[in-house]
């Protein structure tokens, strides 16, 4: 088992190198640091001095890959590729445009993100599984048919509509909770309720529909026929046998996204003014803060690969039939 985990971890290395190279090409080769400086400082009326100053402030005043002027190891280490790209492997994200440490920001901002993302995930799965079980129980009937149609209708509504509508109804019209903001501890509860509820509702249609197909797939299997043949009631078949087996694909689907929960939700966080990583990213995109965007791209990929790794491991844990080969 440990050998398997080590091997799977080693597989992740070439992928991370690929992501790193890709971000390097995207952020430094497609447009040279000069171009980026010029775009930042305003394209017209910008002097070469201003560009050099901008680059020096951010450490972009070095050659891209090979530093001809330096000697020895410096030839490699004194370059943008080494300082900005390879440093990501050591989780050294550098500084954002306003001079703050990105690593520091990430470690403080991930908690508000988690405060929204974790309850949304847990409640979302609970609600979706319950409804999906209901539809699977009444499969083929009008309840099932219309349930699926309602799911499709819910999926067809833009996520922005849920957020704007929810803020308008609950926050502005009924004054139940503040429209946006964040606080820690017990006082923070009133800020979290609405984003969580909206997050759950937004994902409900797709979730119910997906889990329903999982249940229906299990219902067609041989062990279900055996269970019925020995005289178990339909509800018992569904709630004990089918539910247990269908939890395997459901939970492994959840494990993939567990690490990425740290990243938070871009849209929810920025609408509700939650100081998490999602709103951090969105602010960086809108301010064209490339250092932050680059850091988030790399961090997101690392977390995603971690998720894949966890999924593989959890598969082998819950289903012994999956060989470790």
């Amino acid at each position, binding site marked *: 088992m440990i050998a398997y985990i080590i091997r799977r971890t080693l597989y992740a290395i070439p992928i991370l190198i690929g992501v790193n190279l890709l971000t390097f090409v*995207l952020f430094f080769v497609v447009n040279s640091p000069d171009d980026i400086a010029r775009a930042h400082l305003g*394209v017209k009326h910008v002097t070469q001095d201003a560009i050099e100053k901008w680059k020096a402030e951010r450490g972009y005043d070095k050659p891209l890959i090979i530093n001809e002027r330096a000697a020895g190891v410096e030839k490699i280490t004194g370059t943008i590729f080494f300082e900005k790209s390879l440093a990501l492997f050591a989780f050294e994200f550098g500084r954002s445009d306003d001079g703050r440490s990105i690593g520091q920001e990430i470690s403080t901002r991930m908690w508000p993100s988690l405060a929204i993302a974790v309850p949304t995930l847990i409640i979302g799965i609970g609600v979706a599984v319950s409804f999906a079980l209901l539809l699977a129980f009444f499969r083929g009937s009008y309840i099932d048919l219309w349930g699926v149609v309602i799911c499709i*209708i819910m999926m067809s509504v833009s996520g922005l509509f849920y957020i704007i509508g929810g803020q308008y109804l609950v926050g502005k019209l009924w004054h139940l909770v503040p429209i946006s903001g964040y606080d820690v501890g017990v006082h923070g509860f009133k800020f979290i309720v609405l984003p969580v509820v909206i997050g759950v509702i937004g994902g409900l249609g797709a979730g119910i529909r997906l889990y329903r197909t999982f249940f229906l797939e299990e219902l067609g299997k041989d062990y279900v026929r055996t269970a019925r043949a020995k005289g178990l009631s339909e509800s018992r078949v569904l709630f004990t046998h089918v539910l247990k087996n269908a939890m395997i694909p459901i939970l492994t689907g959840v494990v993939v996204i567990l690490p990425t929960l740290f990243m938070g939700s871009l849209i929810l966080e920025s609408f509700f003014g939650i100081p998490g990583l999602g709103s951090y990213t969105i602010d960086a995109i809108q301010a064209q803060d490339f250092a932050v965007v680059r850091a988030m791209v790399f961090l997101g990929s690392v977390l995603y690969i971690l998720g894949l790794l966890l999924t593989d491991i959890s598969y082998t844990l819950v289903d012994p039939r999956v060989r470790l080969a």
Partner: protein
Amino acid sequence: MPFQPVILWTDALIFLLLALVIAFILIARRREHLRAPWREVMRSKMAMGCLVVLLAYFTLGLLDSLHFRPALPSADASNGRVDYSTEVLSVLDLAAAPLRSRVEKTYSAPFAAYSYARETVTRLDGTQVREFPRLQFGGAHLQDPAAERGRDILLRSLRALLVGGIIWLLSGALLVALLARRANTPFRLMLANIMRGRTAIPWHVMLYTSGAMMLLAAWCVALSGAYHILGTGKVGQDVFYEAIKSIRTGLVIGTLTTLVTLPFAMLGVLAGYFRGWVDDVVQYVYTTLNSIPDVLLIAAAILMLQVYMANHPDQFDTIALRADVRLLFLCLILGITSWTGLARLLRGETLKLREMDYVQAAVALGAGHAAIIRRHLIPNVMHIVLITMVLSFSGLVLAEAVLSYVGVGVDPSTMSWGNMINSARLEMAREPMVWWLLLAAFVFMFTLVLAANLFSDKVRDAFDPRLRKL
């Protein structure tokens, strides 16, 4: 010539896509194994009803893709030289010319005769008052809006519905007559069969859906002549016109994304055919791309495009071209984040197909790799591409709105539902609320996405043999 045709990049690709889909339909008609699942789709009432709605959207989108530059009224027409306007218009703009030109000063509510914002008006006697001024165009024909408006709207609605109903009856009768002639049955028998739903294809559902659409269209056309039926936006533009123009943007993103990524997805065919190191490389590339969160990759790529455009203004001389290149690039980058799924499907299918007898026979006959891939593999995986396009369409239309919100969507000068929502969001706090922009964008988007989702649901059912037995 009174106009000069302009073919934007996305226009060319849209018509290429249209040609491909028509070619596919012609091929599929002759092959039973491709035809059977589609026949099942065509028998579904829900799917055909949705198809009518989708076709209506596509017609508007296609009309909006025929671009041209109108000739300017020149001072001396004698020397034969004609100057063309720098403004790129479409056929749809021509049809909706009154909507485009009737611009108010600022916001106004749907069917309003008065502006949303107070203005200082100087009366005839010289006194100045703050009041809501009358709109320049919306309800301008009314003497006393408060008293006349309700009656006027009702009368116009009734007249519009009457006209719409007549058009529907005539076109419906024409369709039934055509069907009767093709089936060689008397008109009345055909009509009775259709009305009772006894035809293989649910024509009655299509007739009712198109009837509802025609009544709605007639109503919109008639009333938008005298009012702003969905209000006006910040700079006084007609919101109904904006929503209609946004259809093309949504369709381009929803369909071209799959088309643009076809070359990448074909790597999946190569991987499945050659296996070995080609397979390893392709799988490595798509795992790497897949591991970057979609929104971040899109954001990074669009930001880089912005920087590039800012530094090379000479390559993008007109606003229309700039906006179009950005739209195409957005499709491309959206495709790059989503081609991995399609490539994986194509790889799996090719792995299966390459062991088929006819491929083995082609190998035995000495056909080269290129010939086998072109003649035997690609035609047989094209249906997967089409299904993927249908299934991913609605998600892409919704994604456009979110990306525009993040600030990495279409160009701000392109009319799109995302841009409409984005601009309205800033006005949320105003009292009374400016709700009509949001409503228009969400309703137009919801109708399109719902129709596409219900249609693709049936397509999925028809093609997925596992679900068919349930």
